[in-house]
């Protein structure tokens, strides 16, 4: 039994080795979740690390699958982990070359909701960041066109935040239909 339970020592993934060698100060934590490597990156260096992950010829995470965020305000354990950073901006990357995925998380404090935009690196980040802005109110600095994308332009509040009520704050009833630009 004991032999079966013994976990085989895996070689350290290349991406973690390279990150530790080149961006050790930016790396806040590393983890693995269902076969995907997860790294938590300091906000100030997020752009540099993401650029490195994309352009390094050995890693080549050229495909940005998704950008989204998580509101941890009601999860005490998660909240305490990174110095009470309420939001976690999440980038999902894929490398065609290595055929592997990587999840990059960036903790964002409530009093400073700005993160560097990655539209320069991936054009596809444009709408993804707009959606994250729309739903969570994260400010992507350097984004060429940071407007709401799903909700109407004059909508107030950020609906995917945990303090936003499911049934809204009366927008369904008080929405101004005549003023909309259709």
């Amino acid at each position: 039994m004991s032999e079966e339970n013994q976990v085989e020592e895996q070689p350290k993934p290349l991406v973690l080795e390279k990150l530790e060698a080149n961006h050790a100060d930016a790396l806040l934590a590393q983890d693995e979740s269902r076969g995907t490597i997860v790294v938590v990156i300091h906000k100030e260096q997020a752009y540099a690390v993401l650029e490195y992950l994309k352009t390094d010829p050995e890693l080549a995470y050229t495909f940005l699958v998704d950008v989204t965020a998580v509101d941890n305000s009601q999860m005490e354990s998660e909240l305490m982990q990174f110095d009470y950073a309420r939001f976690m901006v999440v980038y999902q990357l894929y490398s065609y070359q290595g055929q592997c995925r990587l999840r990059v998380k960036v903790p964002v404090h409530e009093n400073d909701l700005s993160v560097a935009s990655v539209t320069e690196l991936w054009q596809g980040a444009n709408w993804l960041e707009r959606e994250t802005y729309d739903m969570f109110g994260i400010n992507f600095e350097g984004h060429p066109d940071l407007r709401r994308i799903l909700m109407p332009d004059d909508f107030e509040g950020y609906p995917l935040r945990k303090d936003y009520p499911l049934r809204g704050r009366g927008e369904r009833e008080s929405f101004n239909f005549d003023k909309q630009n259709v």
Partner: protein
Amino acid sequence: MGLDFVGQGAGQTDGNIITTTIDKVVNWGRKNSLWPMPFGTACCAIEMMATLASKFDLSRFGSEAIRFSPRQSDLLIVSGRISIKMMPVLKRIYDQMPDPKWVISMGACASCGGVFDTYTLIQGVDQFIPVDVYIPGCPPRPEDLIDAVLQVQQKITSGASPKGVEAVYE
């Protein structure tokens, strides 16, 4: 059909003359050539497409001329969820349709919001546009939609004015 074939029994005209009223003839024509404007925004639209396709074949009831322009149609089929951002679009399409016009609210979502009791979803399109026939179900079967079209046809035959007209003249 709502038409009176007179003279047949009397044998005077060999059944070649029909007397009726203008209203009845017009309504008879309207009823048998409803031109639907599909407003499919979610899963219900799939059932609507099935209704229009060969298996269920809505054209058997004279409604096969689907118009994707509201200006050419007289039956609006709202099938799917309508968000607060989509409602002005739906309202404008309804306004663009020429009178007389009828509206079918297909499925739980269009009729009352369905399971989506959330911040962005209209809880029933009848808050903003007049609805003539509601179809329950999630999604309703194609037979239900056919039944709704038949109910609209019945309304037309009976000479009742559409809900929209009532709303205007009330």
